[in-house]
């Protein structure tokens, strides 16, 4: 059974149909890309998948259970985590606090234990600290754990956002333009990192990206969106040679 299956998903804002009859299936451990020109509705799809927008029609199922109507935090508890196109870190907090906040739903002590400082509080905090440090190590941010998130360079902020999403221990990771603002070297490293976390955490990943080297380099399956509708689905090679895609999006550059 597919891990994520989206059926005929649509949403309108007033009279504008931003996304219509969007269909998508992701098997466990897939690494897929969602591309399309600006304004095609890619982020809108992400916002519906994560509960920010309520779709006007259609269904979203994760492991056979519908996500429609759930609040964003509930969808996160079901195992969906995301990053944002415009970075949304807790910028006045430290790097490690950003991760600890994401670990919150897995915290091992309650409100009473925290206020009374029961032994469980200290062991719970220690565990959260260690887990956060482990994750920071993977994302090569461990030496900056005490820095404020806003003081990190742009590429590191992007990495931190992915690390933070990973701290919620998701099954499905949605990355909204993870390489935006990165230089070619950083993008290359990011590709390796995305592949690596998928294997290491047995993760399913769907990513939006404008950087074609990244999309073509890591994605096994690509969905192309234009004017709110899927116009093509296929492997990078198929997409590269698809006439409709070239017309809609890639233009002469790819042909």
């Amino acid at each position, binding site marked *: 059974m597919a891990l994520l299956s989206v059926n005929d998903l649509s949403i309108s804002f007033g009279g504008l149909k931003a996304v219509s009859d969007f269909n998508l299936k992701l098997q466990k451990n897939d690494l897929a890309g969602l591309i399309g020109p600006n304004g095609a509705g890619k982020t809108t799809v992400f916002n519906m998948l994560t509960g920010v927008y309520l779709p006007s029609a259609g269904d979203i199922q994760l492991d056979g259970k519908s996500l429609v109507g759930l609040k964003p*935090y509930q969808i996160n508890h079901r195992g969906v985590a995301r990053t944002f196109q415009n970075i949304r870190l*807790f910028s006045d907090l430290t790097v490690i606090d950003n991760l600890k906040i994401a670990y919150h739903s897995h915290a091992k002590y309650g409100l009473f234990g925290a*206020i009374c400082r029961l032994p469980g509080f200290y062991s719970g905090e220690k565990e959260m600290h260690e887990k956060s440090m482990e994750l920071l190590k993977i994302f090569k941010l461990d030496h900056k754990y005490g820095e404020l998130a806003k003081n990190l360079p742009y590429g590191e902020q992007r990495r931190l956002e992915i690390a933070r999403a990973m701290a919620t221990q998701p099954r499905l990771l949605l990355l909204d333009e993870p390489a935006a603002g990165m230089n070619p070297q950083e993008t290359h490293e990011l590709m390796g990192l995305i592949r690596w976390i998928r294997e290491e955490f047995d993760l399913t990943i769907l990513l939006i990206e404008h950087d074609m080297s990244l999309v073509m380099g890591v994605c096994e399956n690509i969905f192309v969106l234009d004017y709110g509708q899927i116009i093509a689905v296929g492997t990078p090679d198929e997409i590269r040679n698809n006439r409709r895609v070239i017309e809609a999006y890639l233009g002469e550059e790819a042909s």
Partner: protein
Amino acid sequence: MMSMFERKIKKQIGILLILAAFWGVIDFMIKGGIINPYYELNLILIGINIILAVSLNLINGFNGQFSIGHAGFMAVGAYGAAMITLKAHLPFAIALLFGALLAGICGILVGLPTLRLRGDYLAIATLGFGEIIRGLIVNIDYIGGAYGLSGIPKLANWTWIFWLTVLTVLVISNFVNSTHGRATISIRENEIAAEAMGINTTKYKVMAFTIGSLFAGLAGGLHAHYFYTIQPNTFNFLKSFDILVMVVLGGQGSITGSIIAAIALTILSASLQKLAALRLVIYALLLIVVMLFRPQGLMGTKEFSFSMFSKKSKDKEGKQHGTAIGQ
């Protein structure tokens, strides 16, 4: 793991001993007449103001929800507690607990609908709540109406107020320096991201608002049982603004900042009492100067701690939300 716990316990006992010594010395001086009633009154006011400022800081500073109805919750606590000792003749501790819980329940009732609002809208809604409470009290003759309640037994004293102030600071700082506190702070930082990272933002907003209201109610109960008499006008919006000023001046998101500001402003307004009309001018000027030169407040979001001086760069982790208080 256990040794860390034991070390923390030892540190806590140390802090407790220092606090007990401070309480004992002041208590001895009050009883021996070394501290005259005027200074005692100001010590009491400082304690009550610390409770009010720290609890409002949880809502405004840490959770980032701009509330200016804190005096309303204080009024609920004051009247609630006074009812228990005046009409039901129950012990003081029960009265304080009742007043605080009543204010906490009001916090939930007010918080649930209004915390959907943001920024200035929330401010207006909470301001409205404070005035509604005052209006209700004025119109209920059973609790004294516009004349207020008098003859409340003077049960609050230095001991009660000192230890309850300590308790307030301890509970709120323990809350803030935990995963629940981080969840609360994440809402201030970025609500959309917090929600996407699995934080039930409504729950934590209402929780912070409720805990804040609860302690405002506690302060109200102490106030009522120290000053014998309470009037609805004591808890008008100017009182809310007084508390807000302490929070903003001390730094929104700094518990020690609120404590310092509560102490400083209480002393300042007491010492300016003789100047009468000029008092408000000086008070306002001071605020303007602080806001011009330190818009983030005296402490910003940092906490004052003695380790700030000894190992400045070593302990980066506790930098943001210092672990100095009560741990």
